[in-house]
């Protein structure tokens, strides 16, 4: 049985159907990318997986348990970082650690916070506030906060969407490095096909909202770590890229015909 599952999940806001019969199965330790154009319901799907919203029909299962509310076992890295601007970098992460591991001794909580700030190379900025950091640094704090909860699933909602191309590339490498270190189950939401190919084991194209559903998955059989420059000339990369685009486009046409 898959670790994280969505079973014919539907979600609409008022009369607008956002997701229609979405099925999803992700194995433990897998890094799956859900790719779709903006407005295709990616964030809605992630909210359902996180438990921040509940599906109208269908259900979400984590390790066989019905997901009914958000919790620290499904850490979310939000698109706009969602750091608390009045807390320092350290306090943002330790707020999570202190609340998730309430019964740990103080020293252990401190060690947990410190280790995860170290992981994203931000220990030197521990006393800064988010307002004093660059976008990339903020996203790293957000990532550290999510990882420090030691979640079973890490949900990344367009984590790099707001960053410039260079920072984005660095962060992609960073995410791959961190993921290879502890092999968490990761769901990455993105609108960037290349990013998904660089990072994911499998790509799920989310096709054409309103009433979006997931198309068949595209497996990414490229060796890790993936070098962004080398990969660009790899014929497999080009094939996967074409495949993802084709499925996104086919899905779009299908929805258009359906709604026409």
């Amino acid at each position, binding site marked *: 049985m898959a670790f994280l599952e969505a079973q014919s999940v539907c979600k609409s806001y008022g009369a607008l159907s956002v997701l229609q019969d979405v099925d999803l199965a992700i194995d433990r330790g897998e890094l799956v990318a859900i790719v779709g154009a903006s407005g295709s319901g990616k964030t809605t799907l992630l909210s359902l997986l996180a438990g921040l919203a509940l599906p109208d029909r269908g259900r979400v299962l984590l390790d066989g348990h019905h997901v009914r509310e958000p919790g620290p076992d499904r850490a979310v890295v939000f698109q706009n970082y969602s750091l608390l601007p009045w807390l320092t970098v350290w306090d943002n992460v330790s*707020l999570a650690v202190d609340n998730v591991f309430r019964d740990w001794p103080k020293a252990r909580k401190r060690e947990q916070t410190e280790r995860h700030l170290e992981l994203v190379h931000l220990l030197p900025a521990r006393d800064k506030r*988010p307002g004093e950091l660059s976008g990339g640094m903020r996203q790293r704090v957000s990532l550290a906060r999510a990882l420090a909860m030691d979640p079973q699933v890490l949900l990344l909602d367009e984590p790099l969407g707001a960053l410039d191309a260079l920072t984005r590339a660095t962060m992609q490498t960073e995410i791959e490095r961190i993921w290879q270190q502890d092999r968490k189950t990761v769901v990455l939401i993105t609108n960037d096909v290349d990013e998904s190919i660089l990072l994911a084991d499998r790509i799920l194209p989310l096709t054409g909202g309103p009433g979006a559903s997931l198309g068949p998955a595209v497996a990414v059989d490229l060796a890790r770590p993936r070098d962004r420059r080398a990969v660009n000339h790899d014929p497999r990369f080009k094939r996967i890229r074409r495949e993802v685009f084709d499925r996104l486009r086919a899905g779009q046409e299908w929805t258009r015909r359906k709604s026409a």
Partner: protein
Amino acid sequence: MMDVALESTASEAVVAAPPAAPSALRERARSVTRAVARTVLPPLLGLAVFLAAWSLVAASIETSIGAVPGPRAVWDAAGALVEEHARERTKAVEFEARQAERKEAFLREQPGEPWIERQYAGKPTYLDQIVTSLKTVFAGFVLASLVAVPLGILCGSIPLVQSALGPFIQIFRPVSPLAWLPIVMILVSALYTPEEAWFEKSFVSSAITVALCSLWPALINTSLGVASVDRDHLNVARVLRLGWWTKVTKIIVPSALPLIFTGLRLSLGVGWMVLIAAEMLSQNPGLGKFVWDMFQNGSSQTLSMILVAVFTIGFIGCLLDRAMVALERLVTYGGAGAR
């Protein structure tokens, strides 16, 4: 504010001046002059026009109790009030000294007999009245804040509470202090009967009236601030499964703090305005009573005394507002607008 900025540029110029070449020095002096001209001249000009207009108007109006006082007369009246205060203080000190002397003599002649200490019974001076007013408004404001902020947090975070309290807020908010005051006075007379009165009844009534009227801006702004906390921040709280108290202290209050302070600032302003009316009617020995007493005695000094009070009230109100702004800067986090 402007003065502060000006001071800092001026002092920087002074500190950095010595090694500079003459032309650079001249340039710097010129820029300081320009800064002075920009920040100091307009208010001075405004003041001059105001004083001139006032003198002109004052000289041309004759009332039943004499001419309307011009700036000069009001200034003198203020001076007289301060002098009176100094006189009263000297008298009080002299009284204490005399009493101490008498006590000593008394105890020398009749050792072991009980000595009855007497309070100096002079009337409160203008400055005493200012202090009373400040104490009263402070008491009322603290009372209002203690009710308004927690209630606002409840209102903003629980829609049910919001819709339950909404109509009451709508109805009670526009009520004038003059309507509240008689009710408050009667209730205070009935209910506030302690063995040892720490506060005068008039003080309690005024403070409660101030609280009732200044409650609303803080309540409304707090609940608005709490209701508009960033959705993502609340989602963080949900993912972390923060307890209610942690959520309030770590997320809701810090994020609503700017609006809470806006509310408190408005509340203090309203409270200070209301206070004068409340004191007039409840005879709390503050600025309001001073104005009322002056109006009642109808002497040739009446108008200038009342004008002194008007300026005092305005000046203190302005200072209170500045103090709230400073306090807000102190407690809210620096990176405004940062996520």
